[in-house]
């Protein structure tokens, strides 16, 4: 098993603490089946000289940074290549800072052990895909605020507050990380709507975490209606536990164009 990155430096009063959902993402992304899928999709020996464009791996809602730093540190194992560009985005500025530190720590440990890691571009403060150019992302990871709640917390003001945070401020930042509004899907719906534009035409894919109350079968049905090139499959579950927060990870991807003719005569 690949080591879980350290998040000892993270202040969990204002940043989501890695939990069952985070670990399900780590387990799923490093499973034999997903490694197989990603290795094939991002085969670094695409041309005769072993060159193919570096994939861009973006996590939205990095929180502590445990997931993106895991992918970053283990990019050679997971993607079959170390020339992977990694980046993160969060709506909580403290989470952005924490993620940069988490990546840095994970990267240093890899370097100490003489092992490779990806190339981290940095974290950006923002709202989902709003500042992304179309077609840039090859692998998008999203562990959404998925808990059904009566309403969504107000998005933070763009002005960064200075100084001490009150208990209410910190609760609000945490609420942004879990409160999902109706069916826990209000934020995930916005992300899904943006995916066809944001993902790269030829290699783009996304991993999105859902809980049972998000009505995953309905979500998948909806994605299948995007068109013939699109696929979706459940690739990881927290099956054992049951209960109201049963989790799963869906993988959403497009057929690579040169294969499309073979699949759909």
């Amino acid at each position, binding site marked *: 098993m690949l080591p879980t990155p350290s998040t000892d430096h993270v202040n969990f009063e204002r940043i989501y603490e890695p939990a069952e959902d985070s670990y399900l993402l780590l387990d799923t992304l490093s499973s034999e089946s997903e490694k197989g899928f990603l290795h094939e999709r991002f085969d*670094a020996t695409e041309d005769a*000289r072993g*060159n*193919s*464009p*570096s994939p*861009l791996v973006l996590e939205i809602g990095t929180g502590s940074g445990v997931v993106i730093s895991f992918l970053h540190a283990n990019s050679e194992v997971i993607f079959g290549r*170390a*020339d992977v*560009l990694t*980046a993160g985005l969060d*709506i909580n*500025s403290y989470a*952005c*800072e924490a993620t*940069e530190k988490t990546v840095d720590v994970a990267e240093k440990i890899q370097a100490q052990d003489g092992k490779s890691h990806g*190339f*981290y*571009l*940095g*974290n*950006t*403060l*923002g*709202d989902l895909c*709003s*500042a*992304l*150019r179309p077609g*840039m992302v090859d692998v998008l990871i999203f562990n959404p605020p998925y808990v059904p709640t009566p309403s969504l917390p107000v*998005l*933070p*003001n*763009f*002005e*960064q507050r200075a100084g001490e945070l009150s208990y209410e401020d910190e609760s609000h930042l945490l609420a942004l990380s879990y409160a999902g509004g109706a069916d826990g899907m209000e934020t995930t719906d916005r992300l899904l709507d943006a995916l066809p534009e944001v993902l790269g035409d030829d290699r783009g894919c996304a991993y999105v975490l859902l809980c049972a109350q998000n009505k995953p079968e309905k979500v998948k049905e909806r994605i299948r209606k995007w068109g013939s090139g699109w696929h979706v499959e459940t690739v990881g579950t927290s099956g054992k536990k049951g209960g109201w927060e049963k989790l799963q990870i869906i993988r959403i991807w497009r057929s690579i164009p040169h294969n499309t003719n073979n699949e759909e005569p």
Partner: protein
Amino acid sequence: MKVLTLNFLTCAVKACKSTSTSFPLHPKDCEMVSDTIEPNPKLLYNILPRVNWTALLTTVAELGFPELPPNPPTIEELQADEKMTQELHTLLLETQISEGCLVCGNCGHAYAIKEGIANFLLPNHLV
């Protein structure tokens, strides 16, 4: 944030996305820091095919970096040109923007960068 990030970002204002002037964003009053990164030609070669070169030329000129050739170099050209390889290594892999802002050429909104993190959250009147 690495300079290369500018190649992947655009203005967060919806109405700006379809305009050609919203990309690339224009760095303004930027402070730069440089990481030391071991030479990594493989990474450089595989980054180049996905760089929007025209946008990079604009960014490079605005940040005051040495001028790049008008077209992206091929791997063979890079292998034969140590100086250009070094310059691209410094620019794309080592250089970070730590403070300053990124300005949209269409709406003029300035996205602040503080401690290396750019803030793309919009004020209410632009959402």
